[in-house]
């Protein structure tokens, strides 16, 4: 290979406050390559790519594009050099239309009619059709993800940096997306794929780089690697091999379930109708469901099929329009968005624990809060749930995503709930944090709670749940116990028709 790498990062160092995020990381991306970038949460994957995209200025190290050393001071500069990024958090402006969002990213001229046509054609040409007049805020997650990629491609990106693009997609959609990316590299582009999913990396990528604590611990061709070898590179030797629970193996009625008493129903829904969160139209149409104590029920669904509203109706956060709803109290609820719904970032951990308070909490005395007690209880919870934080007076915003999620769980499960509802409980978490969260949910079930979860990661649903339901267009469909992963994926997309 004589051509220089399209992107080379050498000796990149970056410190945030007291944390050394990158300690001399190297990374090279060859032409026409699909390169997977792996690592635990906090390993520095995203930061490294943000350096290449001009969002983060490194303290030292150099960046070369097509063999020429460059200073990339801003995303604008990055895009001029042909670098495009698809962020983990969506960057479409909700109030603008799809066409406007593309024009904003690509710097296209804003002539309404012409622009719409141009965006429509471009998106179709890229194999990612979109309605250019739709407001980005009205799009489903899958379509938003699609928009992100269209935006990057429209900016004439030759190098595409994708930060966990498949995290929120159904299996079929994820496969589609990876095909589009592959098409992009075949046409001469190069792409970096940040992911947690080892099998996805193994299946889709040409080469793989693994980061651990800000430094590269492995770099090489995918050929010859296995999930196990990559996982041990990511985590280090002490826990090698336990990358993820063997998937699908414990789905269904395995040994653990049999030990649970199955006669006590904690959640019963009959013919429930729930409006959309936006207030217009129905999200859930006639859902019936019973969940017993000790049982974990998982919902598999493509974004926007009513599962969110169903869970919130069960958790008592959304008022159903019609139907019966019997839910045992107390209910624990783990919302999807930690930083806006689960926690108040500007509050301390103690305050965030108190946030869920009810009259029967020990620190509430006739409308007064005993902060000393709340603080000591919080300290105990932090300890118990292994939250890495200086103490109960730390601001929630100072914690990593995984630790924030543990705080939410600690708060919600501390009350010994009889019902647990969790939305995407491990989204954005690294393997160890995800495992800890899943273990907590299992623990809640074996302590006698009925658990209802939804995850956009089908693998997680399969790994956790005793029983799986598919939500499609507001209806709940039972999944046969012996259904394969592919069959479930099919059901999610077609809704059984």
């Amino acid at each position: 290979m004589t051509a220089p790498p399209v992107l080379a990062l050498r000796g990149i160092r970056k410190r945030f406050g007291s944390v050394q995020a990158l300690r001399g990381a190297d990374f090279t991306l060859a032409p026409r390559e699909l390169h997977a970038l792996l690592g635990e949460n906090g390993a520095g994957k995203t930061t490294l790519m943000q350096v290449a995209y001009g969002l983060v200025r490194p303290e030292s190290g150099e960046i070369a594009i097509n063999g020429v050393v460059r200073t990339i001071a801003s995303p604008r500069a990055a895009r001029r050099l042909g670098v495009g990024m698809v962020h983990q958090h969506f960057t479409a402006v909700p109030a603008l239309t799809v066409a406007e969002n593309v024009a904003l990213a690509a710097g296209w001229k804003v002539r309404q009619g012409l622009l719409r046509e141009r965006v429509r054609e471009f998106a179709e040409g890229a194999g990612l059709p979109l309605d250019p007049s739709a407001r980005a805020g009205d799009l489903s997650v899958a379509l938003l993800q699609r928009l992100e990629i269209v935006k990057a491609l429209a900016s004439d990106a030759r190098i595409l940096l994708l930060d966990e693009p498949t995290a929120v997609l159904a299996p079929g959609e994820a496969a589609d997306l990876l095909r589009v990316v592959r098409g992009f590299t075949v046409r001469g582009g190069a792409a970096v794929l940040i992911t947690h999913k080892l099998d996805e990396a193994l299946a889709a990528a040409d080469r793989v780089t693994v980061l651990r604590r800000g430094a590269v611990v492995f770099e090489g061709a995918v050929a010859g690697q296995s999930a196990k070898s990559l996982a041990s590179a990511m985590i280090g030797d002490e826990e090698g091999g336990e990358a993820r629970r063997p998937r699908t193996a414990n789905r269904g009625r395995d040994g653990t379930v049999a030990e649970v008493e199955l006669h006590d129903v904690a959640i019963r829904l009959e013919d429930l109708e729930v409006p959309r969160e936006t207030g217009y139209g129905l999200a859930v149409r006639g859902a019936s469901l019973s969940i017993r104590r000790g049982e974990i029920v998982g919902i598999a669904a493509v974004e926007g099929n009513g599962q969110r509203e169903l869970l919130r109706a069960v958790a008592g956060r959304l008022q159903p329009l019609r139907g019966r709803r019997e839910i045992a109290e107390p209910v624990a609820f783990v919302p999807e968005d930690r930083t806006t719904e689960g926690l108040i970032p500007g509050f301390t951990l103690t305050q965030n624990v108190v946030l869920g308070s009810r009259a029967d909490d020990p620190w509430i005395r006739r409308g007064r809060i005993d902060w000393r007690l709340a603080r000591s209880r919080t300290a105990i919870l932090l300890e118990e749930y292994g939250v890495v934080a200086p103490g109960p007076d730390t601001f929630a915003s100072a914690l990593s995503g995984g630790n924030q999620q543990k705080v939410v769980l600690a708060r919600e499960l501390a009350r010994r709930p009889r019902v647990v509802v969790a939305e995407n409980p491990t989204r954005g978490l690294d393997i160890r944090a995800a495992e800890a969260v899943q273990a907590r949910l299992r623990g809640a079930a074996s302590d006698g709670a009925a658990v209802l979860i939804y995850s956009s990661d089908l693998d997680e649903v399969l790994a956790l749940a005793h029983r799986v339901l598919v939500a499609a267009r507001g209806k709940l469909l039972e999944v046969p116990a012996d259904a394969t992963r592919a069959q479930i994926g099919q059901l999610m997309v077609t809704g059984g028709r």
Partner: protein
Amino acid sequence: MTDSLVLLSGFLAAAVRVATPLLLAATGETVTERAGVMNLGLEGIMLGGALAATLGATAAGPWAGLAVAVLVGMLLAALFAAVAIGARADQIIAGTALTLGAVGLTGTIYRQAYGIGGAGLALPTLAPLPIPGLSQIPLLGPALFDQPMPTYLALLALPLVWWVLFRTRTGLALRATGEGAAMARAAGVRTGLVRTVATVVGGGFAGLAGASLVLAQVGTFAERMTAGRGYVAIAIVVLGRWHPLGVAVASLLFGAATALQYVFQSLGLDVPYQLFLMLPYGLTLLALAGAVGRARAPADLGKA
């Protein structure tokens, strides 16, 4: 019959006159708020513009006054931007402080410059410029086409601002900044710069609004002469749903209500005049409740 027509036409012209400074300030504030910045210093900037226009016109004629007012408006807005955008300080406090400071500064400078005799009415002003033909249209002619230059500037600025906001890349970047600054940044928009420019442009408009009070209406400066118009302009931006067209309608509505207030008082009815004084504000509240209640503000408005 023709008499009442003349009266109606005069009333419409008055509505447009009252609306002009509000429209100018509100148009500028629309640009500012679309970029996500709420400038409560508008009142102070108008006052600064008014004094600047007085000083400028005294020195070098009305056009110089207009230009100086715009410059001073931009300067004061830049000061606000440095604090509220550059240092990301709270916009409401910064705006309040700016207004407070402007009241003090204009009062001090005015007394230094003109003494207790004031500036008098010797200032060269901008007389109405009837547009041949158009100003002869019955009813609307005198209202829209027999006005001083600032009114025409306001009317010309409307489509211009609309075009920039909705038909140019700059406008797209500006709206994106107001609706989602983080996302706009990710798209390569220099949001700090966009917000600063939008604020400074808004300041220029507010300075012009102040100048229009002096040069096209009163012909002199008086301390605190803006009398709350800056705040009203901010209300008008909301009433107009952050859209130039809506802002135009809202300004005219407020102008008409105010003009009506004078008409009612001049009728000599046996009704306390204070009730008429409340009229424009009451009508605005009603309009907010009725037509435009659910208007959505730019998502990132006021966020540092």
